[in-house]
């Protein structure tokens, strides 16, 4: 995954919040795609969500447990994208 983000594993970012509302994972993801992604966006997202095979975590918890795309992200939260591996 870091290959898509200029070999950076961790990025601290100030993501602007639109119309004063609460930031969601969907917005954070789109922001990362538009501002941090260095190549091949199709390997990161498919439509408005992540591409199949990518696990999204909010503060080390599967985003499925926090509302998926609508999961709220607050100041200091960590959103992680993990590609499932197949090698062995």
């Amino acid at each position: 995954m870091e290959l898509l983000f200029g070999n950076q594993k961790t990025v601290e970012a100030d993501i602007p919040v639109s119309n004063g509302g609460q930031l969601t994972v969907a917005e954070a993801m789109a922001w990362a795609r538009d501002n941090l992604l260095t190549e091949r966006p199709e390997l990161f997202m498919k439509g408005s969500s992540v591409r199949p095979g990518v696990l999204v975590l909010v503060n080390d918890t599967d985003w499925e447990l926090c509302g998926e795309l609508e999961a709220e992200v607050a100041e200091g939260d960590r959103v992680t994208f993990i590609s499932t591996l197949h090698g062995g």
Partner: protein
Amino acid sequence: MSSPPGALEQELERLRAQNAQLQAELDAVRGVQAGAAPPVAAAAAAQEEPPAGAANGAACCRPVAAARDWDGLQHGLDKDQIARYSRQIILHSFGVQAQARLCRGSVLIVGAGGLGSPAALYLAAAGVGRVGIVDRDTVELSNIHRQVIHKEATVGMHKALSAAEACRALNSSIQVETHLEALTPANAVQLVRQYDVVVDASDNAPTRYLISDACCAAGRSLVSGAAIGTDGQLTVYCHGEDGPCYRCLFPEAPAAGNCARCVDAGVLGVVPGVIGTLQALEAVKLLSGVGDPLSRRLLVVDCAAGRFHSVKLRARSPNCVACGAAPSITTASLPSYDYAAFTGQAAANDAAPQPLQLIPREERITPAELQRRLASQPTAVLLDVRPAEQFNICHLPGAVHTPFKHFDRYVEAIQERLAAAAAGAAAAGQAAAPPAAEQQQQQDQQDQQNGSADGLQPQPPLYVVCRRGNDSQRAVARLRQLGISHAVDVVGGVEAWAREVDPSFPLY
């Protein structure tokens, strides 16, 4: 029980003796190993001290006349087993009953590769009563840096057989079973069913879905590990009340292009070693009932950073097609499920990808023809589109490195290179009479399309090579789109060059 109260102990003694006798016979037939049959009447005997008497003999293979009167807990381990596994038996958090469960247990390891190597060795060493190994491949020299269960001497041997040999050398008292065919939809459930726990040590997406589905259908816990580069992942699927399966997490398969393979992306040997060892650990925990299995947790291992990180996973999905409330993938339907279609890729492994024919045959030449042309065409430009790691190992003399991954970034440089070669040729042409080579070149280009539409200069010949001849065709096609239409592909890449032209050229 219909026995009168006084006869209970006698009956118990009789059953014990019978059990010991059967055990001894079994051992004599199959060598020293844990009894498959659970001890008889263990619960009733738990608190009873056996009467003092002649201790039975040392070797368990020798038929014993009486029950093991020292085995008050009826754990069923024999003297040899106790000696062999003593260090984990005396472990407070493990103990003799956990070891006994291990010795009665069985594990199926799918894949005798980088993950399966340490997993199989540790499980055999730990005394898992029956270890099954599935693999259809044979050992290659390039496997051994990480697949440490194999040896130089077993290169060319079936991996499952090579692995089984190593396990038996480590522990002759367990049963090791080999399955020399690939795990397929047709055989998966039936195979998985024969074992208590399954270890996914495979190396491709379709097989991973197949194993997970088979474990759901057969109701077996699955220890799943993966490793590539310097990264690893580990989790337990299909476990307990709410443990998810692989499909719960990844209901949609990733595109084939997103699945890095060791053969292409590389892998540091120790990394699958770490993950495979942890898989053995999880299997030991599941079989023995000791510890907290890694269900609903994913261990993410970044070996480069030296970071182990465990994250929390979702529960089983009620809508999951494999393990949900109304699964559509069942024992009955699984054999006809098309995993290649679902994942968009065949269950290929470490083997080379299929050679493709992506561009017209007339835009491709053989390595021998390349050699002839390079010798006769001093202005020829040769592009090598492999990644830097591979280019750095070996490349043809004079090859220009233009990795396919960022090919468009190099197009300008390629054009400059062609212009420089053309200018050099023109200068040489003015200084001397047209050299024979030039005429040769004209001839060579007759069967190609000459890209110099402006007609000012004949374009210097342009050849493209990669590892095996697939990416180089894509590069030729891309050059054509960008207006450089006379590029020619080398069939089979540097591997074919090594085979057909220069046997001293390294293969990797």
